[in-house]
């Protein structure tokens, strides 16, 4: 967990007002403890990604909202898929074979 000052120092192009706007937009969701904010490693990685998308890849904030929404949905779907993959993994061999067969014919 790092605070607001630390994350701004850590991620080069990040400015306090920009970070605050992203938090207001819901793009970054740090834990709030009274007036101070705490960013876990997921938040930091996400801020770094948003910085890259915005500053390096020049995705404007309007489009960025859509990109992030789609990206989060993609990861949500992947998480579900992973859950199912492990559920399938736990099945006996014949069940797995049948599922594999069904998936292939789709």
């Amino acid at each position, binding site marked *: 967990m790092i605070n607001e000052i630390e994350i701004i120092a850590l991620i080069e192009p990040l400015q306090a007002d920009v970070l605050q706007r992203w938090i207001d937009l*819901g793009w970054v969701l740090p834990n709030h403890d009274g007036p101070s904010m705490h960013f876990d490693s997921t938040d930091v990685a996400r801020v770094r990604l948003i910085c890259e*998308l915005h500053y390096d890849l020049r995705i404007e904030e309007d489009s960025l909202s859509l990109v992030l*929404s789609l990206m*989060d*949905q993609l*990861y949500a779907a992947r998480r*579900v898929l992973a*859950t199912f993959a492990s559920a399938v993994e736990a099945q006996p061999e014949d069940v797995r074979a049948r599922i594999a067969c069904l998936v292939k014919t789709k």
Partner: protein
Amino acid sequence: MADPYQILGVRREAGADEIRKAYRGLAKKTHPDLHPDDKAAEVRFKEIASAYAIVGDEAKRALFDSGKIDGSGAELKPSPDREFYRQHAEAEPGVKYEQYWRGSENGQEDDLFAELFGRRTTVKMRGSDLSYTLAVTFLEAVNGAKKRVVMGDGKTLDLSIPPGLVDQQILRLRGQGQAGAGGEKPGDALVEIHVEPHPLFQRNGNDILSILAITLGEALAGAKVPAETVTGTINVTVPKGSNTGTKLRLRGKGVVARDAKGDHFVELKVVLPDKPDDAFVKSVKEWESMHPYDPR
């Protein structure tokens, strides 16, 4: 590390804008967080980022161009062991961001998960059809009937037998089959009807055939005799001089259904008395000798 110009696909003398553009194009294609399925993306992206860290920065580019640093310099910007967002997003902590866009703070079950999982637990399926056979009487089939029957499997069926039903016809009783699952409709009961024969009546399409026994006198002199029909007993006029095999048509007394109006054909059968007495036999013999005839 290979030549950063080569990695970015630009000439050595490329301008800063050209280099930035090249980097942006490659980064979009390889950013690991945007390509979670591409295992090689991370390596490739790091390579591109490292290359851009050198030639995208005027000072470092000058140092590289003059041979003072090489491509593997420790002063490169992106730390080689940096974490990408995808590592987090695919683990438990990523959940809070997934849920943000749903606009619900109640931490609702993942829709996709619920949908997939739901399919396994609450199957949505129309109930299956159940087949039965049921015997009904001849008159029930002709006239129609409403019945409540308990079938062999304990299932109670409410049947409405339409008038004019034929043997082996299948009645579909909507919603009286197996119950549906997950809010879906129940199946139907398919009831094959077997019509029992009747001692008196036979059926030919919508017509009813029966045999009516009459006495010799009724046949010879004509008479009004009671006859059974499918709707009850009526008085039939036996014409004078009728014989065995004479057919009488009783209009509209056959199968009367929605689009059918059959007739009842009564075939007369002249029946001699059980124990004709001598006087009767003698008079007939006498009559015959006077009026011989050949019925064959």
